């Protein structure tokens, strides 16, 4: 672009065309053929107007990187252009809009000065290639030590117009200079002292970046010849005026260029004007050159070169030097000067440098904040919490535009640290415990994991939370340790089947509806069926569960949906949920957390069409979860989660001694509750004929009655019922009231009457420990049926969470228990519906915070008795 500008500046006199397209600093030139004078006008982002334009153009960039980053690089470009001017000009004019010297120039000058010395050899090399350049010029790299003049474009209102030319204060002492002169002198003194202090100007002009004349004014403050001058000027400057202009003089000249006349035409004829001020300096330049040495060096012309080139030579030099200063810093040959330019960039990009260094410095600390005290492997939830901690620690200490970049580095490193062998299996057991193994696959699954481009082999093993429970078998007569189940079939079926081998397999079993065809070739399409059904139901019943993304991931083996219930928020394994704690954190963190969706999204793929097609064939399929009231009618589960066995005849139970030697029972609570059921349909005669034992019992009871007791003529029979709870540690107990573990049996004559007509809590604090009691779960229903013309029917319905789905056995009608027998109904160990397992509550439920229940009406009686 410089070529173009130079070319145009030499041959085309009218070049004050706004060129706002260019993002880079622009040096406009104007050659005055009549006056043989080249004026260079540097426009860069430092101009207010250009700045506004640039910001508009770089809107996008600002949005992302912020102003500091934008600024720093612009500042570097600006400095490079300024450097070129310092090498090409005899006189430079430093313009300020106000009337104070901006000390940020000190930094710019200082950097340029440092650089000028470093870059000298490279400049000399370039100059050598131009024929006809004096040796001195080559050695110094510039035609002279330029003079810098300071132009201030406004003055205090009190000094504006003609007011500055005389002191109007009555009480002021007369001074030999008018106020405006005193302002100029004062500014000169300030500037001089500051530049001296910073060692930018020295005694020997040739050694400095530039000089200021020692015996001539170098500060001009614009007053505006008239009051209005200031206003118009302000408008003009707002439109286009550079902070820094520069002139180079080629030969003889007299007038200031049109650049200034634009706004000085009015003033030109006045005595006080910048044109005159500048012309004086230009004239000296043409007469004898500057000699701005001071103190003992005054008059020493040695080392003070002064060259006035021809235009052609100057243009050639300018061309080459611009190339040098603006070339990319990657070229091999320019290594040395590249290095120098790098330092300039570092000087100019202080904010970026600071930010980078600061963030780099804090990064290891933040990483160790993450790695400190980490377990060998851990879950995504734990990882996120740790990462969040490290992030907030980092954000307190990191600063500036680089902080985002390094925040990403931090997150990436921590995530990588976690993913390289520290990931824990995210599976949650059906009782709510994490699988404690490191990330692994199940037997039969593809154990290759793609992390980026590398493939890793995951260990293959079964899930294990390391937790062991104690539980009794279907009939309750045998206890064994059980592993924390991850599969529903293990939880509700396999464990009990294994124990049956040792205990209850010979008892009479009542079967539950189950899907009977051979369980082979479960192809993914069948899975989708389930998904559809679930989805449909979720639309209807929004309060239910988390969608089961996992079910559609094509797998060879069937895996039960194992997402935990949404309501148990403490332990929620689904990937989407993991993000919740981070929601209000900074965007960066969120962005990073997105990387954590390692395999999450795959599950959402089935198209609507595919699912609709699948729905038509759904009648013939089976349920992968347990049967609930909302399950599609006709679908049966693969295996029963319930068990109903008859232990034997009713004589097995003796109300005086309780359940006898069943393991795990607390001694005071192993009694069933008597439930007096009246017989109303049959006459005494009929009873006498068919059921003499009932009348005998009634007579026996009447004789035992105390004399003052009211006479009860009704004939009743006794059913014995026990609601058995079992805690994870294998403790078992009966309840005497809906919320009360049984303490002793003797006084519980009427208790069962109340129990059968109300909801029973599914979970209850186990009395085995007083502080922090474990949560016991209603596990078995003991029913001893009398020898009487009466059906005791059972139809258990369980709602494991308030408002949740209701689990049922799948029987079409309540099951009639055969008379004169001891029945044990074992309830499911885990309730797993469409959305996943309902986890038992972590703490025992209270009245305010209820958990699930066994709905009332699970046990009834039916007098409509017919034998056989």
């Amino acid at each position: 672009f410089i070529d173009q500008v130079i070319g145009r500046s030499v041959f085309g006199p009218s070049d004050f065309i706004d060129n706002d397209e260019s993002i880079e600093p622009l040096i406009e030139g104007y050659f005055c053929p009549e006056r043989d004078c080249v004026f260079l006008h540097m426009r860069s982002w430092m101009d207010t107007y250009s700045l506004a334009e640039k910001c508009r153009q770089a809107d996008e960039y600002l949005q992302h990187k912020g102003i500091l980053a934008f600024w720093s690089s612009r500042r570097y470009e600006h400095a490079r252009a300024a450097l070129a001017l310092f090498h090409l000009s005899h006189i430079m004019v430093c313009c300020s809009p106000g009337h104070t010297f901006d000390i940020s120039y000190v930094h710019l000058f200082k950097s340029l000065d440092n650089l000028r010395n470093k870059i000298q050899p490279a400049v000399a090399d370039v100059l050598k290639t131009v024929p006809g350049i004096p040796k001195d010029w080559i050695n110094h790299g510039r035609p002279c030590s330029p003079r810098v003049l300071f132009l201030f474009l406004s003055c205090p209102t009190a000094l504006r117009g003609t007011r500055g030319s005389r002191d109007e204060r009555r009480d002021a002492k007369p001074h030999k200079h008018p106020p405006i002169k005193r302002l100029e002198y004062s500014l000169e003194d300030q500037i001089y002292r500051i530049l001296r202090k910073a060692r930018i100007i020295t005694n020997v002009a040739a050694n400095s970046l530039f000089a200021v004349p020692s015996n001539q004014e170098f500060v001009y403050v614009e007053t505006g010849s008239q009051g209005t001058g200031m206003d118009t000027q302000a408008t003009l400057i707002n439109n286009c005026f550079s902070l820094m202009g520069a002139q180079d003089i080629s030969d003889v000249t007299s007038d200031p260029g049109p650049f200034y006349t634009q706004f000085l035409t009015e003033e030109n004829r006045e005595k006080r004007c910048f044109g005159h001020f500048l012309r004086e300096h230009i004239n000296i330049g043409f007469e004898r050159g500057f000699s701005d040495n001071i103190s003992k060096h005054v008059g020493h012309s040695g080392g003070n070169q002064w060259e006035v080139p021809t235009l052609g030579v100057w243009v050639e030099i300018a061309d080459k030097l611009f190339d040098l200063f603006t070339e990319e810093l990657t070229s091999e040959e320019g290594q040395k000067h590249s290095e120098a330019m790098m330092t300039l960039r570092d000087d100019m990009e202080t904010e970026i440098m600071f930010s980078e260094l600061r963030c780099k410095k804090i990064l290891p600390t933040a990483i160790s904040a993450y790695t400190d005290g980490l377990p060998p492997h851990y879950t995504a939830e734990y990882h996120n919490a740790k990462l969040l901690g490290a992030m907030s620690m980092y954000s307190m200490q990191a600063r500036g535009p680089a902080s985002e970049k390094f925040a990403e580095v931090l997150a990436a490193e921590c995530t990588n640290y976690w993913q390289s062998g520290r990931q824990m299996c995210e599976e949650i057991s059906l009782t709510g415990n994490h699988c404690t193994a490191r990330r692994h696959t199940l037997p039969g699954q593809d154990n290759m994991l793609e992390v980026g481009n590398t493939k890793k082999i995951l260990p293959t093993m079964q899930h294990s939370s390391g937790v062991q429970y104690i539980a009794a078998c279907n009939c309750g007569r045998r206890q064994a340790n059980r592993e924390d189940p991850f599969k529903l079939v293990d939880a509700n079926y396999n464990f009990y089947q294994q124990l049956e081998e040792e205990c209850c397999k010979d008892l009479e079993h009542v079967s539950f509806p189950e899907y009977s065809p051979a369980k082979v070739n479960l192809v993914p399409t069948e899975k989708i069926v389930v998904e559809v059904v679930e989805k449909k139901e979720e639309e209807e019943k929004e309060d239910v569960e988390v969608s089961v993304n996992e079910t559609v991931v094509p797998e060879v083996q069937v895996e039960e949906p194992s997402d935990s219930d949404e309501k148990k928020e403490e332990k929620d394994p689904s990937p989407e949920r993991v993000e919740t704690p981070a929601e209000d954190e900074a965007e960066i963190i969120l962005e990073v957390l997105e990387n954590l969706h390692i395999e999450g999204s795959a599950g959402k793929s089935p198209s609507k069409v595919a699912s609709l097609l699948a729905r038509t064939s759904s009648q013939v399929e089976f349920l992968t979860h347990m049967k609930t009231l909302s399950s599609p009618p006709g679908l049966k589960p693969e295996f029963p989660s319930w068990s109903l066995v008859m232990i034997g005849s009713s004589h097995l139970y003796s109300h005086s001694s309780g359940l006898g030697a069943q393991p795990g029972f607390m001694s005071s609570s192993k009694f069933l509750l008597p439930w007096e059921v009246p017989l109303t349909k049959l006459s005494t005669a009929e009873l006498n004929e068919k059921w003499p034992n009932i009348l005998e019992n009634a007579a026996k009871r009447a004789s035992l009655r105390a004399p003052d007791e009211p006479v009860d003529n009704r004939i009743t029979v006794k059913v014995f019922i026990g609601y058995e709870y079992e805690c994870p540690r294998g403790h078992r107990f009966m309840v005497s009231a809906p919320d009360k573990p049984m303490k002793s049996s003797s006084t519980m004559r009427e208790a069962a009457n109340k129990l059968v007509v109300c909801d029973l809590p599914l979970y209850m604090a186990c009395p085995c420990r007083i502080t922090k009691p474990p949560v016991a779960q209603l596990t078995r229903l003991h029913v001893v049926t009398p020898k009487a013309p009466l059906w005791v029917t059972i139809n258990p319905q369980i709602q494991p969470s308030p408002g949740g789905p209701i689990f049922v056995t799948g029987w079409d009608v309540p099951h009639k228990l055969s008379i004169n027998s001891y029945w044990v109904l074992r309830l499911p160990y885990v309730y797993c519906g469409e959305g996943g397992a309902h986890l038992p509550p972590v703490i025992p439920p209270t009245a305010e915070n209820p958990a699930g229940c066994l709905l009332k009406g699970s046990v009834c009686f039916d007098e409509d008795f017919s034998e056989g």
Partner: protein
Amino acid sequence: VSKVVNRRDSVSDKAVPKLRQAIKFVDENHVFCDGINEFMTDNTDFIVIGVFGLQNAGKSTIINALAKLCPEEEDIFRVQGFEHQMLAEHCTNGIDIYVNARRFILLDCQPLLSASVMDRTIQLEKKYTSEFNSTENTMEVHSLQQIGFLFSVCHTVLLVQDWFTDVNLIRMVMAAEMLKPVTPTVNAEDKTVTEYFPHFVIVQNKAEFTDTEPEYVEEIEGLYARVLKKSRLQWRKEDERPLVVMIPDQEGERADELKNRMKPNENFEESVKTMRKTIFSLKRSPLTQAKLTEKGWVSLANRTWDNIKNSAFYMEYSRLLP
């Protein structure tokens, strides 16, 4: 509202002496002064407003306009006189503080990037001139520290300008925002420190004839909206535009007397009223988590100042300066 004000007045009149003139809060040697403490009460309903800007922008004039209860009142913060202007000297050194009867705490800063301040420093040969390698670096860091301080202890800061904009100044504000350290809380266990940033209002002072034209204002607002996009300062109004206030040239009113001067479109007094309304109606976000009394604020300011002076950020930054 007036009732509340009256009650407040009576409380403060009784309890504490009244401050007539602004006093030093941070002196020119960059040392914190707690002389303001005796004028402070246990009142928790107060606003802290700070101004900063380049030399001669009119910082003290603007803050006077905010501090005075009526325009006729005498100046509270010293403003440049003819002599200052003639000799291009600055007027305020360090940071001045004043608290008025309505419990506005006002802070006035020395000019930023000021040649005059630097010159004075050089001439007085202050010990700290080489605190950060060189005088100019020390000047820069001190300016950054002062802005950082205002950003930490004020509810609202005003950037006063008398020119469209100055890149170096904006760069400095952004750098100061970047460098501002987090003030530690008294109670070390409180780990939930969040970084605080005040309202940021740009006061375009000495606006000329055409400067109040809607187009021009829009231009200014557009620029700041872009420049401040990433800033965490509270610079936005409800409509996402930056908080820009235009104050016309004070002298404009006398334009008729002065030959050939154009009278600005806006009236100075009216604009000041608008500015006061804008600034006082900004919703105050709490400086600390616990509720602060005026006295508590002074101690917060003291801690903040110490923290800023000892912060490694500024040292690291200064090492990178040329």
